[in-house]
């Protein structure tokens, strides 16, 4: 069974077609990069998959459930683009932020347990941020903050992690280390779906690339195949 299946997906604004007839599917353990020039609907596609936006036409299934009726929030995690654009003075510790990731498993009206603390420590350890657990999130660098948000996504032990431009606003060294971290997580069996404009850093770790075109169409390729295509240069040089 496909872990994610998108069939004949369309999304249109009254005056513009963003996505036209897009179909693809992912198996468990895939690492998909969604790429394309500005305005081709990369983040829109992710928001449609996550049911933040409603499609004009088509069907999306995550883990066998229709995206519009999806309730297994504990099996997926999302690192939003906003994660790097939050209020830097927000008075919350790394530990408190990662604990939020447990909400989908624990749900409404539950109290913190000892095992939660262990899960938080373990997630922070996986991203190399355990010693920062008591630090305020706003006092960390962009790369460290992104690691914390990945820990928040990991704490639930999800089957799929969706990321929207996780390397925006981070220095080159931190981008490489985030990409390596995502590669390791993928090797441990987590399916990753990531919107990115920084394809050169992540291509080595991914196995599939979905290239969105300005006419709303999309093409899915194996990463090696994509690497050799001229569209690589096209996408890369457009940013």
């Amino acid at each position, binding site marked *: 069974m496909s872990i994610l299946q998108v069939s004949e997906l369309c999304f249109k604004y009254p005056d513009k077609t963003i996505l036209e007839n897009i179909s693809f599917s992912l198996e468990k353990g895939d690492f998909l990069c969604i790429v394309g020039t500005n305005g081709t609907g990369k983040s829109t596609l992710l928001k449609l998959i*996550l049911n*933040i936006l409603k499609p004009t036409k088509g069907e999306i299934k995550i883990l066998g459930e229709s995206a519009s009726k999806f*309730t297994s*929030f*504990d099996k*997926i995690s*999302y690192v*939003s683009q*906003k*994660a790097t654009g*939050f*209020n830097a*003075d*927000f*008075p*919350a*510790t790394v*530990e*408190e*932020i990662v604990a*939020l*990731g447990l*909400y*989908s498993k624990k*749900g*409404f*009206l539950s109290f913190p347990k000892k095992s939660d603390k262990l899960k938080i420590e373990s997630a922070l350890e996986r991203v190399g941020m355990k010693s920062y657990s*008591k630090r*305020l999130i706003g006092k960390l660098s962009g790369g460290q903050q992104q690691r914390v948000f990945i820990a928040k996504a990991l704490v639930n032990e999800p089957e799929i992690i969706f990321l929207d431009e996780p390397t925006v606003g981070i220095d080159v060294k931190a981008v490489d280390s985030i990409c390596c971290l995502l590669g390791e997580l993928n090797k441990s069996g987590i399916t990753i779906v990531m919107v990115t404009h920084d394809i050169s850093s992540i291509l080595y770790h991914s196995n599939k690339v979905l290239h969105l075109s300005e006419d709303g169409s999309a093409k899915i390729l194996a990463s090696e195949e994509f690497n050799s295509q001229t569209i690589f240069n096209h996408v890369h040089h457009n940013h």
Partner: protein
Amino acid sequence: MEILTYSFMQRAFAVAVLISVITPLIGNIIVLKRLSSIGDALSHSSLAGVAIGLCFGFDPILSAVIFSMLAAFTIEFVRRCFYRYSEIATAVVLSFGVGTAAVFSGFIKNSSAFSSFLFGSIVAVSSFELFVVIILSLIVIVTVIILYRELFFITFDEEGAQLSGVKVKTVNFVFTLLTAIVVSVSSRTVGALVISSLMIIPVACAMLISKSYRSNVILSVIFAVLFTVIGLFISCIYNIKPGGTIVLIGIFILLLLIPFRKK
């Protein structure tokens, strides 16, 4: 301490302390969502409710609660119409509140009843009002404790909260109701013109020194109680308006704390 032997002062202190506990609980969310002006918009709308209530013979607190709630939902509606300039929403509702209050206040026979809502009348709290404040404070405290994680999550990352299964619309609706209740009830005692300060200043003080979200919430409540108790004592000793005194004490402590803010 002799002043605490009078029953009216005991009621005043009880009400003031309860209000100083509930206002920063709401204020934390409002400040961290960067919606600080919403308190002003709601308190001025509650004044409009008071004026209409006093004009037509309704209970002014009840009409203040209703007006605050309507104002809160109107802000949400107007915010969607001006997506990129959402601060317009609070300005529009605040102006409507001031305008309505000004027009209807001209028809109120007992103008001192209306002016007591402007700056509060904390030392004239009746036993019934104390009872109402106790019940509403309990509702606010229990709800904020129950929704602690949800409110924290939504305040930090609303989209992420929704994708983790938080019922964002429901929690926001409940929070709006709580805000309207807190503003209306508090405006009777500390004054509509002062209430938003009591929501914001203790949180601002806490943000200067807190080391976590939890400590920010706790510290803001401690600061608010501290300002209120000191302010009430000073206002009793020197016979000055309690609401204004409480706020000025808060501003004074905020200025004192600025050099000690965390780096």
